[in-house]
């Protein structure tokens, strides 16, 4: 049984100006210990998708359709108090901004005490302190520093503490939402490395959400490409790198500078992402797609399995037509 099953999930934001369908008909599953990447630009629905897995979609968001199962239990049907024990206990979330996710008037140690006492009320004081020290040690932070306040730490260290809080209860799944976007490259590399080591050590599955396809390609086994709330492509990283199928994925890969290539020619994707209050009919990408045909404007293409485990939502593949020509190097 997979650890996480998401089945035809649809999330709406019901705003006063209209309903925004932030995530539409997304299905995937994740086994224990796997690493999944959610890639997409701002507004693609990747964070909403991540948040709905722990049922924290902010108001006015509503999970309109679909099922989410963790270890076989449909969490959308759980009462609130049972959901609380899943959050943090079974599935933990690492937020983007380490500056605002820690309580500024509480010492670092108190964050851990609160977390452990809430989930495991019978733990003795000594044991809580012992466990906090072990986690801090694994984060390469001196255990004495549990008596310091968040402002006494640098941005990179605060993000490490956030990771520590996420893994302290040894969850099966960690969702990391842009965990390094606010940080410099050297710190970013260090944190991603640390996250990977801890993931192996604790045997967790990881969902990494990022706008940076380079990080996702480097760090994940499987990748979902999101665009305007839709899953446009879902493939193993190796496949996606070797043979991106969707014109949007091809365009994205052609617009990322790669320091290992010399004389790289970047190509732009024309136009801009759609207004989600008034999305285009048919395929969400057609107004920017150079292969768009009449049929693309009429109906949303189905997600088809083109290769072993390589899913694409594009009419180019629906009818067994020759796939779009690529001119990407490397």
């Amino acid at each position, binding site marked *: 049984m997979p650890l996480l099953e998401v089945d035809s999930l649809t999330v709406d934001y019901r705003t006063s100006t209209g309903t925004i369908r932030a995530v539409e008909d997304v299905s995937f599953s994740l086994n224990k210990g796997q690493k999944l990447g959610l890639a997409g630009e701002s507004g693609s629905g990747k964070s909403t998708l991540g948040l709905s897995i722990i049922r924290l979609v902010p108001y006015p968001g509503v999970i309109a359709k679909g099922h989410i199962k963790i270890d076989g239990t449909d969490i959308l049907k759980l009462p609130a108090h049972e959901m609380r024990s899943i959050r943090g206990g079974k599935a933990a979330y690492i937020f983007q901004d380490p500056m605002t996710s820690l309580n500024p008037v509480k010492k670092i140690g108190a964050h851990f005490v609160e977390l452990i006492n809430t989930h495991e009320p019978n733990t003795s004081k000594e044991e809580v302190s012992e466990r906090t020290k072990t986690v801090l040690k694994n984060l390469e932070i001196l255990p004495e520093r549990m008596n310091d306040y968040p402002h006494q730490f640098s941005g990179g260290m605060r993000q490490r503490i956030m990771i520590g809080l996420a893994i302290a209860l040894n969850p099966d799944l960690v969702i990391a939402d842009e965990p390094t976007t606010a940080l410099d*490259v050297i710190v970013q590399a260090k944190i991603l490395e640390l996250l990977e080591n801890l993931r192996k050590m604790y045997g967790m599955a990881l969902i990494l959400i990022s706008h940076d396809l380079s990080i996702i390609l480097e760090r*994940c086994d499987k990748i979902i490409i999101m665009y305007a709330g839709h899953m446009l492509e879902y493939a193993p990283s190796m496949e996606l790198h070797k043979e991106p199928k969707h014109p949007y994925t091809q365009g994205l890969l052609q617009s990322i500078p790669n320091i*290992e290539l010399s004389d790289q020619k970047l190509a732009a994707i024309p136009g801009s992402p759609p207004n989600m209050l008034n999305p285009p009919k048919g395929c969400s990408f057609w107004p920017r797609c150079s292969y768009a045909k009449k049929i693309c404007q009429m109906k949303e293409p189905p997600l088809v399995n083109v290769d072993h485990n390589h899913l694409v939502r594009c009419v180019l593949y629906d009818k067994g037509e020759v796939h779009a020509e690529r001119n990407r190097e490397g």
Partner: protein
Amino acid sequence: MLSEIVKVEHLKKYFPVQKSFLEQLFTRELSYVKAVDDVAFSIRSGEIFTLAGESGCGKTTAGRVIVRLLEPTSGKIYFNGQDITKLKGEKLRLLRRKMQIIFQDPYASLNPRMKTVDAVGHPLEIHGLAKGREKKKRVLDVLERVGLTPPEQFINLYPHQLSGGQRQRIALARSIIFKPEFMVADEPVSMIDVSLRTTIIDLMLSFRKELGLTYLFITHDLAVAKYISNRIAIMYLGRIIEIGHKESLFLDPKHPYTQALLSAIPVPNPKRERKRIELSGEVPSAIDMPTGCRFHPRCPYRTDKCSKEEPQLIEVEKNHFVACHLMK
């Protein structure tokens, strides 16, 4: 040999640190954040010169001092051979037509209450060059240049009606309306979505050809820097520690910091086994600078000399300068 359009010598910019009342009673001495601490380089006409480094290294401050948005603490700035460090009044205003700057955040750099036609045309009015119909004509012309077509559709829109990419194009249009010779581009694409970045970069590259524009490009993203620039200078804690042509810098980085920085950049390739150079600690504060080489507390190759003597930039290969004691 290309002529030098911009040259800076011994450029310093220190910001005084505000002290508490008690500290003021006990010490007279002021402490400073040494944002830019003795930087020298020159930019050749027609090239794209990049200042790169992590946050807090002083790259943005350096850019702002060069276009005279900030007063340098000491040092000299030359533009086309003329010393502009102390220019004032009308002369400084005339200089501004030739050097422009665009900023990182297109949500903050445009006045939310100004329509496109006014925002882009405002510099013309300030300088008394055009107004009314003539202004509108020139605005339409530059909007077309930055790819906002048809321009008539955009001139009456307010910033909130535009996307991030479109706003950055408007900022770009405003900065080229004087047909400047030199532009400082401070992280112009770091807040723009990946799929739209390339169009902004391509526009900047096309202006270099069409308008003969020279750029000082400021970025933390070395992959973008490699794509766009001719020469790159790496900054660390207010100093330039390495300058070179991008080919030699990326192929053969000399300074231990540059090596670590390059090894940390993610590469869009799942097959690649990466060897990262680990650095200990984090960037120290720019107030209490380490003695000697400012990188030595984190450097894996440090020697006794490094904590005592500050290394100077020396030419180790043709056009490749490095400030490190290991190089001799």
